[in-house]
């Protein structure tokens, strides 16, 4: 179950994790982009975490909307509008709810994937975070419970690592084309971390990857 409390805890934990992984993500982005993905994400989720700290929210919708707005004004790169879209889709999906079950979480994730596709005009297989979000969301939808949540993490991790082997056709890495093969997509890695932390906040006991890719 996802509650106001677990979602807030998730944001805090994800922000902390992004701070730890900042240089790992920057280094990946440095190889196939402009080297700021870790900085962008860490700054954005730090801003979001600070914005919601000590605040009370009527429902998950209001909390997600606040996160989206914080991200928009603080991430700066492509991941800004993409993650803002994710949280705006969550806000719509979980409007008026103070807690949601895993079916509803799965619906929120599916809506987020749709939002990401529309925002980035990307499909799975273009070496973007969609490559992680899509199978992870589908894993939970197929099994909307605690095990499904763990399965989502497993498929997110697998997809993030598999992003290494394909060329980018969207985002800055697309400038490199075939030369982007051999480096993991930074946005896919940070997305896998998103699922790790989301699962950890909701079902607990998730083994965290070190991501020394």
């Amino acid at each position: 179950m996802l509650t106001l409390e677990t979602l807030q805890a998730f944001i805090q934990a994800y922000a902390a994790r992004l701070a730890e992984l900042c240089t790992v993500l920057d280094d990946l982005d440095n190889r196939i982009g402009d080297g700021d993905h870790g900085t962008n994400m860490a700054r954005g989720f730090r801003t979001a975490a600070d914005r919601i700290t000590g605040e009370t929210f009527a429902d998950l919708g209001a909390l997600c909307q606040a996160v989206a707005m914080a991200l928009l004004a603080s991430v700066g790169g492509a991941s800004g509008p993409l993650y803002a879209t994710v949280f705006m889709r969550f806000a719509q999906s979980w409007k008026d709810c103070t807690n949601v079950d895993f079916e509803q979480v799965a619906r929120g994730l599916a809506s987020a994937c749709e939002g990401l596709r529309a925002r980035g005009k990307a499909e799975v297989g273009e070496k973007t975070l969609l490559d992680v979000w899509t199978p992870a969301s589908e894993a939970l939808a197929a099994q909307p419970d605690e095990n499904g949540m763990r399965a989502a993490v497993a498929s997110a991790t697998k997809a993030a690592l598999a992003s290494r082997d394909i060329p980018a056709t969207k985002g800055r890495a697309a400038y490199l084309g075939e030369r982007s093969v051999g480096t993991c997509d930074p946005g896919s890695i940070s997305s896998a971390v998103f699922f790790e932390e989301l699962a950890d906040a909701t079902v607990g006991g998730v083994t965290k990857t070190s991501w020394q890719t």
Partner: protein
Amino acid sequence: MSLVIVSHSKQLGEGLVKLLRQLAPGVDIHEAAGLGDELGTDATAIMAALQQCPNTHDILVFFDLGSAAMNAEMALELAPPSVAVRTRIVDAPLVEGAVAAAVAARSQLPLDDVIQQAEAARTMHKMLG
């Protein structure tokens, strides 16, 4: 008509606006560039720039990179519909497209012609002969 310049760099955005104002005095031109002192774009700043445009104006948005366009689209979704409906994001080379649009806007050409001139900047050769 108003133009809004969206760039990852505050300096680039401000410099371009000055260049445009020189060749199209009287045309309403704004920028939403940079993320504080960092390189980046900010959908809330873009929305604020859209709202600074007179409410009778059509607005053309020019941008530097794909992620700036995503943030501009985000801004359009956040902006009041009365603003969004008057706004078009133009996929044209930032400097060359905005220069062509500014000159056309100054001559008070119709919106579609201004956009067409901006898009035509793609294929224009700046170095002649």
